[in-house]
């Protein structure tokens, strides 16, 4: 097992990367749909979600770079870190799959985002509270959209029900990671910068269970907790992230020092 880092880390920098990377990676995944959606209207809506998420990531990673104080901006962080340096959760880096798979991933994330951002609007860190307030409005729209599709696909045809149930069962294992509390989180909680993930978990369970029921889907039950203390938040990602980054970073890295 890889030992947990013992060197002093800038907890706020770490935390902001977690927030920023979740949104950057999910926004990137959503942008992969552009031009390939099942309905033209949905192409446009999916692009909207991608735009919002990448916009949020830009603000968060910019702030992260400022907090770090080593002259890295949002592009330096997005394009010049290795996969193991990314701090997003496993859920957001999973491939799109079919439209239903994308919807389930989005919904599970969106419910978490609304609760978390709501808590962050009361952060003692003014910059972060401001970003959260703006992002919360967007996240509320996202969860309405993905929640709506959960109902349509869950309670649509036999085929859509079967597909979306399989995606829910498959993606469910990535949800406990959203609520893991480690030393970074504890430092954020005690400084009043971020809400306690454990508190969010209960509300998340209630909302998600309600939508699953209304969508006539089967609740997957309790998911096993992460196998290792070293998870994606510490850089232990799935194999998918490396491929995503290879594509995302190729042009920027082919031209070191260039401006775009």
């Amino acid at each position, binding site marked *: 097992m890889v030992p947990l880092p013992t060197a002093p880390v800038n907890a706020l920098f770490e935390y902001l990367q977690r927030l920023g990377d979740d949104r950057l990676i999910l926004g990137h995944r959503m942008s992969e749909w552009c031009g390939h959606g099942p309905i*033209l209207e949905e192409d*446009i809506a999916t692009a909207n979600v991608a735009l919002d998420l990448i916009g949020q990531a*830009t603000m968060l990673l910019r702030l992260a770079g400022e907090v770090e104080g080593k002259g890295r901006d949002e592009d330096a962080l997005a*394009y010049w870190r290795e996969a193991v340096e990314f701090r997003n959760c496993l859920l957001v880096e999973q491939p799109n799959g079919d439209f*239903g798979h994308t919807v389930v991933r989005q919904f599970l994330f969106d419910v978490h985002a609304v609760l978390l951002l709501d808590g962050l609007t009361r952060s003692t860190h003014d910059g972060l509270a401001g970003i959260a307030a703006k992002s919360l409005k967007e996240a509320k729209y996202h969860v309405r959209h993905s929640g709506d599709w959960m109902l349509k696909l869950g309670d649509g045809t036999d085929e859509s029900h079967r597909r979306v149930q399989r995606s829910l069962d498959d993606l469910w294992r990535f949800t406990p990671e959203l609520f893991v509390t480690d030393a970074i989180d504890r430092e954020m909680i005690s400084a009043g910068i971020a809400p306690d993930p454990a508190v969010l978990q209960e509300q998340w369970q209630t909302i998600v269970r309600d939508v699953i029921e209304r969508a006539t889907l089967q609740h997957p039950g309790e998911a096993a907790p992460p196998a290792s203390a070293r998870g994606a938040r510490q850089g232990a990602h799935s194999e998918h992230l490396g491929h995503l980054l290879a594509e995302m970073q*190729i042009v920027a890295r082919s031209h070191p020092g*260039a401006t775009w």
Partner: protein
Amino acid sequence: MTQPRAIDATAEDPAAVSAFEARIANGESIEPKDWMPERYRKQLIRMMSQHAHSEIVGMLPEGNWITRAPSLRRKVGLIAKVQDEGGHGLYIYCGVETLGVDRSEVVAQLLDGRAKYSSIFNYPTLSWADMGVIGWLVDGAAIVNQTVLAKASYGPYARAMIRICKEENFHKRQGYEIVATLAAGTPAQKAMVQDAVNRFWWPSLMMFGPSDTDSPNSAELMRWRVKRRTNDELRQRFVNLTVPQAAAVGLTLPDPALRYDAATENWEFGEIDWSEFHQVVKGNGPCNRERLETRRAAERDGAWVREAAMAHAEKQRAKDRSAAA
């Protein structure tokens, strides 16, 4: 391609046709509920649906670089642009529906290869610089076309063009800004953007369609003010606008015959390779198959989603009915 019908406009009620043509000559705008000759309606359906298809297929070559955009700002700019094009397509499809034909019907014509779309989108995008050059040249050419279409006689089309043109202007500015940045960048960036210009210059000129001497639909479209300028006039206007823009950022255009004629105040340009144009229109361009196959795949893969949405809506209606009963 729509075949010319056996009966022409004069076979319809001659009084109605001449009243219609008088309205057009008067500069009046024709609205969906107004009487119109069948040929006019057909021509508009053909033009507007081709235009809408071009917006939709046009999402693909640029969509190809969204995941590789080299900065977050550029990524957001490109997604927003491609999204706008989807919005244009949607908006024009709605316009087509005012002529009494369903969106699903015209989309089916695109997917089975009966309908055309702008040939420019059958060229591949090979580098990031293509994102700048397409915005600059392709959206630039579209603006030249659409600015005159904004004065077209059919009201819904003209109004759509006014709204869309505003966004196309933004796309062109964004594209030109990418081009200018690359042209002022590293030697590799400058080479990349010059190469993109070399590849897209001639196809951009072909966007205005065949030469006037070889344009089967033009005369009638002009008389009915569906078109207001000929293909060659618009092409010349585009060249005159673009040559100084290329010079301003230190890029060359791949045409040794290009020269300024002080008498006509036009930039004279070389002979367009019309055989290439006709090949691409016929379906033999570098990406015709890929573009159509991509659209077909999206349609195929999305079928279960559309069915689910309809089934769900039907269940909701049934619930509402039983709640009301």
